[in-house]
């Protein structure tokens, strides 16, 4: 009952309007692990605690220094000398009492040595400022356990994120500009019956002016097809003629002047998109052709079982089309005509969903699972989003780093423009190399900067050589990365904090589409790029 909205509903109202109660539930059941409570780490966590994730655990073996307090909102000078995980957890916990905050005063390397399965419990592990060796070790453990891993780093004015997830399915991708599913090129039986009840040439003015544009286009298309050998308007000239054909249908007053019929204007405006052929999107076709879809086992997740069911539907009841989405846009019409038309679409969509449900039950039975394992509501939601299904797969870190499988093509083609954001990825790899060799990052101290520039250049060259990358990195970038001295400016950390948190929310909620697989932010130019490495 609306009047007794819970305080959580009130608090989370603005975000519930984006991911719904069911999305919020996934967040509240999630347990996030943050490794290293640097400014970047705490900023990420802040944007996960505020929206109400169930729990977080900070893993950090470091002791808080004065430098840490200088750029981290979730540390204060009382924290100096304390363990950083503990100090940060205290201040992060204050943000939201619904969230359970925990900390482990331990370095990730130690945990990997003694208890790697510690990490298996998490919905996602976010690793911030991890040295390369730790990152790869952790990456391997999480990859085997299929725990999503988000690697983040702020280095000077550069932000970096890498998502590592084997397979991430998205049913509710909420695309910004989705095309309507009206089927005007392949009208289904119930729709054809419905438009029979309309006789545009013999309607009174009020009804004529309040007939939905979908019906107008459908009726005129019927006439056109009968006069053009069943050929729908295809090129610009034909579509123009079709628009004119509709325009001639506008009622005229006794002086022969066309009346003001907004619904007809809507029909004319929508001809272009209305005549778009109903097609299964290539993204969905690709999913139909994938191994997971064609080989349903008892291990198959609900996503793949439902997708296979839709594929079966397409080849049977669907006659080559996906289940009908069932929604129509608002349009000029009187209430009754609109609602009746809307119901025609809704009823058909429900029928299609029922047919898909039968296929789901069949599939579940064939792998020895009870038919109720997948709820009718889930199937309906899946059908409604059939055109928008997405699957994101990211390569493992091992694949990215291995000489045998490094994505040379992506790197070299991006570096055709020597100032592309790819150069920052390469520089980050180079400074990691520098750290491995010298146990510190370049340029930490003023007196070292000049010397470090040549040392860093050696690292760059060895990196390019090891991967046989025949590209050139401008000296300016090597100089700039020494100048950064591994600084972590708060504003850059905060930008990454917002970005990474939302990607984590996407992973947890399975709504909206995560990036894949590398994101670079350049605060100098306020530009960014997504790379596939």
């Amino acid at each position, binding site marked *: 009952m609306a009047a007794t909205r819970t305080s959580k509903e*009130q608090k989370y109202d603005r975000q519930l309007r984006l991911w719904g109660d069911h999305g919020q539930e996934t967040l509240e059941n999630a347990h996030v692990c943050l490794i290293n409570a640097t400014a970047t780490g705490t900023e990420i966590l802040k944007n996960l605690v505020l929206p109400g994730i169930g729990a977080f655990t900070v893993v950090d073996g470091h002791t808080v220094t004065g430098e840490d307090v200088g750029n981290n909102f979730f540390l204060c000078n009382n924290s100096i000398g304390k363990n950083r995980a503990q100090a940060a957890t205290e201040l992060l916990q204050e943000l939201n009492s619904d969230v359970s905050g925990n900390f482990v005063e331990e370095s990730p390397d130690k945990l990997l040595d003694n208890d790697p399965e510690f990490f298996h419990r998490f919905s996602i592990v976010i690793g911030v400022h991890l040295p390369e060796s730790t990152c790869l070790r952790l990456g391997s453990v999480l990859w085997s356990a299929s725990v999503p891993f988000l690697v983040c780093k702020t280095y000077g004015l550069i932000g970096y994120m890498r998502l590592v997830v084997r397979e991430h399915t998205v049913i509710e991708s909420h695309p910004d500009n989705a095309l309507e599913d009206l089927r005007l090129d392949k009208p289904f039986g119930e729709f054809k019956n419905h438009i029979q009840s309309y006789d545009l040439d013999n309607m009174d003015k009020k009804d004529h002016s*309040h007939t939905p544009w979908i019906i107008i286009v459908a009726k005129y298309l019927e006439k056109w097809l009968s006069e053009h050998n069943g050929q729908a308007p295809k090129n610009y000239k034909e579509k123009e003629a079709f628009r004119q054909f509709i325009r001639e249908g506008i009622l005229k007053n006794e002086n022969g002047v066309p009346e003001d019929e907004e619904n007809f204007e809507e029909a004319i405006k929508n001809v272009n998109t209305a005549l778009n052929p109903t097609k299964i999107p290539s993204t969905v076709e690709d999913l139909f052709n994938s191994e997971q879809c064609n080989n349903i086992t008892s291990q198959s997740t609900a996503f793949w079982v439902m997708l296979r069911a839709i594929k079966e539907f397409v080849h049977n009841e669907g006659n080559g089309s996906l289940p009908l989405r069932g929604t129509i846009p608002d349009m000029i019409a009187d209430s009754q005509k609109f609602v009746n038309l809307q119901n025609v679409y809704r009823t058909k969509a429900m029928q299609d969903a029922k047919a898909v449900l039968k296929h789901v039950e069949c599939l579940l039975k064939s792998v020895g699972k009870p038919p109720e394992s997948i709820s009718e509501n889930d199937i309906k939601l899946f059908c409604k989003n059939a055109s928008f299904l997405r699957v994101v797969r990211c390569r493992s870190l091992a694949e990215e780093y291995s000489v045998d499988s490094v994505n040379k093509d992506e790197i070299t083609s991006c570096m055709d423009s020597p100032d592309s954001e790819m150069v920052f990825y390469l520089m980050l790899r180079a400074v990691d190399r520098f750290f491995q060799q010298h146990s510190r990052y370049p340029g930490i101290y003023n007196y070292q*900067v000049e010397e470090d520039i040549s040392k860093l250049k050696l690292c760059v060259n060895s990196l390019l050589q090891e991967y046989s990358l025949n590209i050139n990195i401008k000296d300016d970038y090597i100089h700039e990365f020494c100048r950064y001295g591994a600084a*972590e400016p708060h504003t850059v950390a905060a930008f990454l904090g917002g970005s990474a948190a939302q990607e984590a929310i996407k992973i947890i909620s399975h709504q909206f589409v995560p990036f894949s697989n590398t994101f670079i932010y350049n605060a100098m130019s*306020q530009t960014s790029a997504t790379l596939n490495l």
Partner: protein
Amino acid sequence: MADAEEPMAVDGGHRNSGCDWDGRWNHVRKFLERPGPFTHPDFEPSTEALSGFRLIHVVDMDTIDVSNLNRQFLFRPKDVGRPKAEVAADFVNSRIPGCKVVPHFKKIQDFDESFYRQFHIIVCGLDSIIARRWMNGMLISLLSYEDGILDPSSIIPLIDGGTEGFKGNARVILPGMTACIDCTLELYPPQINFPMCTIASMPRLPEHCIEYARILQWPKEKPFGDTSVDGDNPEHIQWMFERAQERASEFNITGVTYRLTQGVVKRIIPAVASTNAVIAAACATEVFKIATSAYIPLNNYLVFNDVDGLYTYTFEAERKENCSACSLVPQDLQFPSSAKLQEVLEYLTENAALQMKSPAITTTLEGKNKTLYLQSVKSIEERTRPNLCKTLKELGLSDGQELAVADVTTPQTVLFKLNFTA
């Protein structure tokens, strides 16, 4: 990002080393001590400015609501009802030693030039275009020109950020030099309201039923006496929710919920912590660049969207040659002398480049100031209403006549020049 406007001042040499500790500025000093290949050509490295931002004034007319807590991280449940500016100031002052935040529980319009003139940089996180245009106009009014040349020391940079759901933008405005808010007004599409006939007699969507309850039933039935709709009052929303449900069932429309009702009545825009964090960070980065001259600032508009992956687009918004706010060109009004004043009024409100809300038009006739039409004061509205039906000629206006137009969208009156077409 709190819906607050934060004028910031950087206090250069005055360093209060008493509150600093070892290593406090390590993450910042590297950018300020050393020149680099990408730093601003005018940048001069030094350790002088190593004091962070010392003095920040915050202006916000709002109090804290429980629905702010999902993203406005300076506020806690115990703060609900308190002024945002004051709570924000208290929090930052206690968390960041040496930084002084001065709160103002006021509207931005409550201050005049003497207030805004004191700042080095102004940052806005406003929640309406009207407010943005006002601030934009205020900073433009502070510009001084000598012999038509802009005095750079009169420029106060304006950094503006805004978000809606998973979308956001950040921009840097150098008033008088780069594109201002009004230069790019067409980037903001006008708010769409449902047509009255749909609401009154042909509802199709649950939203139409809700607007019926709000616009037609409420004024008629006055369920809580003479009070107007208060979107923050759950009883008001509940009443409209129930009326909307009744209307919906009359027309076989499904989908009316309490949440939808509140969303429509309050024109709620969804919001999350993450997008606001990204845009606030981008704005803060620009403040840092401008204050330190360490890097070339954003030139001048950043768009962000993380619905599908993360997308950013950075471009240079161009100045409009005849911008009604920042060009020195008097605005042209082309009308036949037989046009009615009503037509001029409609032009001022409907033209995409002007989008005024309730313009007040005055002019000088026979050496005396004459109000042609003004809406905001009831007695004057009634007195000048007949003018709307009179032609420009009948009102005594001549070709080339200057009209001064005042409106909420700008702190200064805009001068228009009448150009008779016939």
